[in-house]
């Protein structure tokens, strides 16, 4: 038997999901109002620091970087203004990045329990449940399809012409199949958004939450000070 492999959760995954949801909303909201580069850099720097908790593959990071460069370049061409283009890119990253950081550091079971606590409308709980399950599955599928192409001697990295038939067609097929199968799977496991559900591990406020809360407030205060206080 292989040696036992324990789950190594990042410190961020142990933080109360509500705190992370609140912080994400706060960061996205703030990023919409920032006009100066310094607070924007502080905001984004903090988000990137949080992202170090995620184990992203270098290839994915490479693609993100490529997309950022393409976006900045095309914005600069349209606006004929490089500083404005760079600021727009930073704003886009500040809007986009907090959500995956939250999503990838919140175990699905914790998310359901927190949604239960706030008694969100049932249709919303179900949708979030499915999305939470759906995206990791699709990420896994994407990787498997990519590898299957490589096994046929096709390296999609260098063959964008094959992306449609080699990647999109099987992926869309899997998405359609999974969307339905996951809904059926949820029901076979007894889940119903309208039925009462117990909670075997209620969320408790911990010292780590207090610490996270304190650091987050200090961070947001610094951003506000740099933007409006000087």
């Amino acid at each position, binding site marked *: *038997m*292989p*040696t*036992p*492999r*324990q*789950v190594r959760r990042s410190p961020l995954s142990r933080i109360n999901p509500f705190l992370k949801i609140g912080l994400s909303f706060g960061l996205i909201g703030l990023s919409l109002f920032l006009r100066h580069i310094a607070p924007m850099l502080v905001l984004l720097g903090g988000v990137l620091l949080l992202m170090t908790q995620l184990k992203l593959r270098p290839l994915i990071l490479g693609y993100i970087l490529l997309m950022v460069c393409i976006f900045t370049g095309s914005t600069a061409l349209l606006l004929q203004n490089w500083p404005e283009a760079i600021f727009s890119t930073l704003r886009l990253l500040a809007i986009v990045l907090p959500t995956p950081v939250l999503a990838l550091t919140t*175990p*699905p*079971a914790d998310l*359901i329990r927190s949604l239960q606590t706030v008694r969100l409308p049932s249709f919303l709980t179900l949708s979030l*449940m499915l999305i939470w*399950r759906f995206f*990791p*599955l699709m990420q*896994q*599928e994407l990787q*498997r*399809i990519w*590898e*299957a*192409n*490589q*096994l*046929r*001697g*096709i*390296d999609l990295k260098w063959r964008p012409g094959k992306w449609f*038939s*080699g990647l999109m*067609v*099987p992926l869309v*097929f*899997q998405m359609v*199949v*999974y969307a*339905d*199968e*996951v*809904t*059926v*799977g*949820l*029901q*076979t*496991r*007894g*889940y*119903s958004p309208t*039925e*009462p*559900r*117990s*909670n*075997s*591990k*209620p969320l408790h406020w911990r010292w780590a939450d207090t610490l996270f809360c304190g650091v987050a407030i200090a961070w947001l205060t610094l951003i506000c000070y740099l933007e409006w206080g000087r």
Partner: protein
Amino acid sequence: MAQEPPLLEVTDLAFTHLGQTQPTIQNVNLTLHPGELVVLAGATGSGKSTVLNCLTGIAPEHIGGQLSGQVYSRGQEITSWSIRDRSQRMGILLQNVETQIFTDQVGEELAFGLENWNLPPGEIQALTQSALTEFDLVEQQNWTIRQLSAGQKQRLLLACLLTRQPDMLLLDEPFAFLDAAGVQLLLGLLLKRVQQGQAVLLIEHRLELLKESCDRIYKIESGSVSPLHKSALQIPVQVPPEAPSSTSEAEKTIILQTQNLSWGGYPPFPDLQVSAGEIVLLKGENGCGKTTLLKLLSGLLKPATGQLEIQGREATRQNVVQRSRAIGFVLQNPNHQLFAESVEAELTQPGVAPERAQKLLKQLNLSHCAEKHPHALSQGQKRRLALGAVLAKQPQICLLDEIMVGQDTTSLELMLSTLKNFTDNSGTLIFTSHDPNVAAVLTPHVVTIGTFS
């Protein structure tokens, strides 16, 4: 016991898929009594899964189509009940277990199902612990789901379903990915439940596993279900094992060689020395690293230590695309490997002669659906097509990862004779399979994985 109403009774059930004029299943009558283990057997595409879908409520609610007839549970009609309502009485295990798992950790997954049924938290803790012990998952309690092998995932899901003690269990190929020890463990657990008064209805191709244990067998053929006597079971695969090759050891060319390969938390893999035309079966319990070794050989994973030689050349640093010239790899899930717009096009890839593609289509009994879209095929046909697509490129080495799962006797025979053809022409085969019938036919050299040497 005879006076009790059946746990499940189906009368005159028929189902016609959306857009079809002919019913997929018709005149289905079956019963399931407390303390019974009943098998539903039939060829690939005969309608077994459709019957199961009708019993569980998946059809027509999610599949769409016309259902007629009645389904009763303990004398109460449940035909109009939702899947969730039926799940109160039935433990339902679908073919693709990944779509029934919703958390990221083994312990959490057990708790998830119990929370859905609103059980008190104290009871959930106790039931979770007892299920982990019963299903031999204590060691994996804190593992992430991604770290589990396919067989371990299936065992986990069964633990989740059985924890609630439903009246009956409806299982779609529960032994598919289990090793011999896993099969025995599960069979023992099912029989224990049966003795306690629960009933089990399962779809399974490996009937030799159940012949002694099951109470009754229903056979489904062309959509019609009929009782079958146990003695009428067709179990052995009919491809005769061939006499060992007369080629002496000295004449054989070593085509693949490994030394001290290791990866992740697995014990070092045994060294392999495989000759052209040789058949190697990687054997070991679920989660021991069989798939991981195949991935290391194909280049999908890079070894932490060790060396690999292919055709006498150092290949450890070659990437998967470079190795694909010599190695073909058929994955567990055929859906990932089918990209073309038709079955025929899937085989007629660049560099593949049309005659070879036609020959393989014929060998694998896929000629009649050559124009169909690959994703419109049944699961068994897809597996055969994925095998054909790999063999069409005439690799020197073919790796197979549990592709015989879910194949009925006829389909398995087609696969095995095609593989025999491949090895007779000096192709090397390295595969994983828990099915003893496959090993009996291919007579492979067995390499045990997962033991410290």
